[in-house]
């Protein structure tokens, strides 16, 4: 892949949570690239380290207990992990912004939504007057389909779907180059999910924002992602573009994920679950982390943690048996 077209490049990122009960190996030697203007889907089970990864990009991990041990997060050619607090604050909200999982708790209940949108606008544009910022906030609300006269309302006066729209408006208010969406539709009703996704897709196209979409819904991945990274126990086990991943899922875990999707065309009524549980992150298995649950595992898998292999152009798989 050409270096210059990559908006974001994560190299060897390792994040641990150090607690009295032990060290949680949340993210381990993670490598990831996101070309400018594209959408990357980050897929995996709960606890795979997806949220930790994106929070490490923004450096909003709770410290303590989180510690970024090694790695580089290269955004627009600069390593974010080397930046000081002040310059990082200028990037957060302006260059990279984030949409959170639960719209119910992500807005401050005692501040009007208009003010919350204005806050991010005024933080990154010191010269803008209060009145202009308010007008801009109202425009953002209109953009996500909320009437501007509701800017003076408080979050509790909105429904879940509308709150998520407010959060989207807030995230896009400064026209960021990278938008991180952490399971933006998980907490919403199915009908609202579709609306919110459609809105995000429309706005992404309008603003030409690159996006990282965390999800465990492969349907969402198929719909809006250009690239997909499958995460398991803190590692990327498979990475490729959407077509590669959907046409040729190669890692046993990815195959397992696809087998879990109900298919209306087939007669079979039972789904095939992936046996076993996600490993305890304080006590990860040796060798390949997936081997205790892997149907193809051999003796060697418990000893060697496989390196990532490129099986076709840009399609990487972390498995010994590929």
């Amino acid at each position, binding site marked *: 892949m050409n270096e210059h077209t990559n908006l974001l490049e994560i190299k060897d990122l390792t994040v641990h949570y150090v607690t009295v009960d032990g060290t949680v190996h949340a993210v381990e030697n993670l490598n990831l690239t996101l070309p400018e203007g594209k959408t990357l889907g980050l897929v995996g089970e709960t606890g795979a380290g997806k949220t930790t990864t994106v929070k490490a990009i923004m450096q*909003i991990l709770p410290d303590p207990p989180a510690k970024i041990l090694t790695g580089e997060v290269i955004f627009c050619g600069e390593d974010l992990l080397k930046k000081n607090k002040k310059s990082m604050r200028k990037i957060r*909200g302006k260059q990279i912004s984030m949409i959170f999982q*639960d719209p119910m708790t992500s807005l*401050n209940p005692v501040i009007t939504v208009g003010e919350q949108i204005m*806050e991010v606008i005024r933080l990154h544009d010191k010269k803008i007057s209060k009145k202009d910022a308010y007008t801009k906030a109202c425009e953002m609300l209109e953009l996500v389909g909320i009437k501007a006269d509701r800017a003076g309302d*408080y979050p509790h006066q909105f429904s879940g779907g509308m709150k998520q729209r407010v959060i989207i408006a807030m995230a896009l208010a400064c026209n960021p180059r990278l938008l991180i969406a952490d399971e933006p539709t998980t907490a919403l009703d199915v009908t609202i999910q579709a609306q919110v996704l459609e809105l995000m897709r429309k706005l992404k196209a309008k603003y030409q924002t690159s996006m990282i979409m965390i999800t465990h819904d492969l349907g969402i991945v198929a719909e809006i992602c250009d690239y997909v990274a499958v995460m398991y126990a803190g590692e990327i086990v498979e990475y490729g573009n959407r077509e590669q991943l959907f046409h040729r899922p190669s890692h046993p875990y990815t195959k397992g994920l696809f087998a879990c999707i109900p298919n209306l065309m087939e007669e079979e009524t039972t789904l095939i679950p992936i046996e076993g549980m996600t490993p305890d992150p304080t006590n990860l298995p040796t060798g390949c982390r997936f081997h205790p649950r892997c149907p193809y595992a051999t003796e060697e898998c418990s000893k060697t943690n496989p390196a990532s292999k490129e099986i076709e152009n840009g399609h990487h798989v972390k498995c010994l048996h590929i």
Partner: protein
Amino acid sequence: MLKYIGRRLLMMIPVMLGVILIVFTLMYITPGDPVDTLLGDDATPEMAEQLREELGLNGTYIERLGKYLVNLAHGDLGICYSTKQPVMDRIIQTFPNSLKLAGCSVLLSVAIGLTLGIVSAVKQYSLFDNIAMTLAMIGNAMPNFWQGLLLMLLFALHWKILPASGFDGWTYMILPAITIGTSSAAAVARMTRSSMLEVIRQDYITTAEAKGQTELKIIIFHALKNALIPVITTIGIQFGHLLGGAVLTESIFAVPGVGKMMVDAIKARNYPVVQGGVLMVALTFSLVNLAVDILYAFVDPRIRSQYK
């Protein structure tokens, strides 16, 4: 909002009636006769009987209660047995002193308690947090009268920089205000800390961080306002207590406040003063509670929308 306040004020009437009934009954069944205290040992039974008649102590329970209520409805709280002043005048003399003292102590405890609580929460488990919370525990555990005497010994007797007792100027306020303020400050600090700790783990704090907001502004604009509700409750309770209940401290430092007036009156079986004092304390307590509830609405829009 106004409707809500009006309703709450109306609801105070039965509360006050209840308070009057309880205090009146308690004083009625308490053994002891005010006449004995007033006349001393030399009094003849005839003099005692005459005085009893004058003070209206001869009627039955119902007669006396009825008379008290009728007078009260006319705004008459009765006459103080010992000074022969209307009770209302005595309250007007003493209440401002209690108010000043309570105001100073609350300001002190809010300033110290909020600061300690916020910093402790933000720097949880740090050295500062440990020291502040140990101090808060000591402040909470220390008995008022002991601390008052200690301060008096040090500042008034040993160093001679502050007056020991009386109430002739603002310097007289320092020691009693510190005495009362310490335990309130400790309570406010602990409440602020725990409330802040809960709030700074909320998602909207992460949202604010993700916007690029500075840590200080996140604490002040995003966290504090959300953490204030339980803190306001604590401050309200403390303030209510201080207004009428700083009995020990007022006695130690000879502050002529409502608390001291009531203690003296109880000792002398000065019924009208006790009743008037308790009524006043109950009234301020209710008003402070109302103020606290209004403050809630001011701080939290979710509560505000319920008041409509």
